[in-house]
């Protein structure tokens, strides 16, 4: 009897550990995400989004993922709703996007793009896949047929990690009519002609405002810090 117990005990222990561990870390993650959303981004500022994504990639860190989820999922949901997805489906797709973040975290390269940019591209592609039911054609950076960058882009004065913060500040400083058109371009499928008709702005003005906004943001990316 005692022997049987002795044999069974490690097994039971292991089972308990197996059962508890994911739940414990899920609990921690919940806590992390609650702090994150509750304390209006303070947690994200403490440990920035790039670091959190790297922690998911390197350590499969659930608390880090929970914090990323708390930050990005509500924004992805908002993005998808703007593009006409109903709230229920938007939330489901936001989960799908975050699941891809979890599984593809190793492919995140902070020298190429910030975590926000990386998540934006995943959300964009997920929408094309799930809502439009189309493939998203993309080049393969490892394709031998790819024409490589001649030299490391010298005009890239801003580190990818700082790019998002600088761009946000610059978007905030745009004239409102330019910023609004920019948001419509990214978050609305409407043709520019429809935007023009709806707002009573000539098509040429829609296009020139958009172009001005893009020029300004591009110039900023090339300026040294």
């Amino acid at each position, binding site marked *: 009897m005692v022997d049987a117990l002795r044999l069974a005990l490690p097994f039971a222990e292991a089972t308990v550990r197996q059962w508890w561990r994911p739940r414990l870390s899920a609990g921690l993650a919940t806590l992390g995400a609650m702090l994150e959303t509750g304390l209006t981004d303070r947690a994200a500022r403490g440990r920035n989004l790039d670091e959190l994504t790297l922690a998911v990639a390197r350590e499969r860190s659930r608390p880090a993922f929970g914090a990323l989820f708390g930050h990005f999922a509500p924004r992805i949901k908002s993005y998808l709703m703007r593009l006409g997805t109903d709230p229920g489906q938007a939330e489901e797709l936001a989960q799908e996007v975050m699941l891809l973040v979890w599984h593809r975290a190793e492919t995140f390269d902070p020298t190429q793009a910030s975590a926000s940019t990386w998540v934006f591209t995943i959300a964009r592609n997920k929408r094309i*896949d799930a809502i439009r039911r189309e493939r998203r054609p993309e*080049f*393969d950076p490892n394709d031998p047929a790819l024409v490589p960058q001649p030299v490391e882009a010298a005009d890239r004065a801003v580190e990818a990690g700082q790019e998002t913060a600088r761009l946000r500040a610059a978007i905030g400083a745009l004239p409102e009519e330019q910023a609004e058109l920019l948001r419509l371009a990214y978050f609305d499928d409407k043709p520019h002609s429809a935007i023009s008709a709806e707002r009573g702005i000539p098509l040429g003005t829609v296009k020139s405002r958009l172009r001005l906004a893009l020029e300004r943001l591009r110039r900023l*990316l090339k300026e040294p810090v």
Partner: protein
Amino acid sequence: MIEPKYHPGEEILLDYADGSLSEPTALVVATHLALCPWCRRQVAELEAIGGALLEDEAPEPLSPNCLIEMMARLDDGSGSGEIRPGADRLPTPRPEPAPAPADLIRIPQPLRSYLDAPLERLDWRPVMRGIEEVDLGLGRAPVRTRLLRLRPGAAVPRHGHSGLEINLVLAGGYHDQRGRYRFGDVVVDDDSVDHRPVADRGGDCVCLSVTDAPLRMTGGLRRILNIPLFRR
């Protein structure tokens, strides 16, 4: 390596980056990106703007169980993100063809994954004298996504366009009254263009061609898109 001289233009790159281009046009743009480091940089910048806008979004509250469900899904191997969820609803991507022999034209990704054989072994159908095509069957009618092969010196009869036509030169070259187009160049023509393309001598000209493309943008400014706007 000579870099392309004619680019899709900022509006098309923006529509590619923000995800509003339909698949046929996006295929032309993405294949051009493989050949054009400069446009890749533009798209990376436009995506960074998308990232900043996402960051600026007012968070939409999630339902109370959302995070718990999410954490549970991390353990659920079946929901693995490595396999595209929803892939079953999509047309099966064609298998990667065997690598093309070095003497054949190198087709970059993503176009390569849309072809089921090297260029020479595709099912080329004659269109008219000196011109053959392979229909990739992509896009809803009236959109057509085709590979076109022009024999050296072959001339396409003078034509206008009922919609937008976008060509990517994959081999050889052609010219019309506005310019000479070579490997990697993207040529955008709209209904205002009435032209007569002629293939260069010295080798077959192969293009990826999308006709009647439903671009998001409409209006009369398309013509200027084809001007190499951002020359360095």
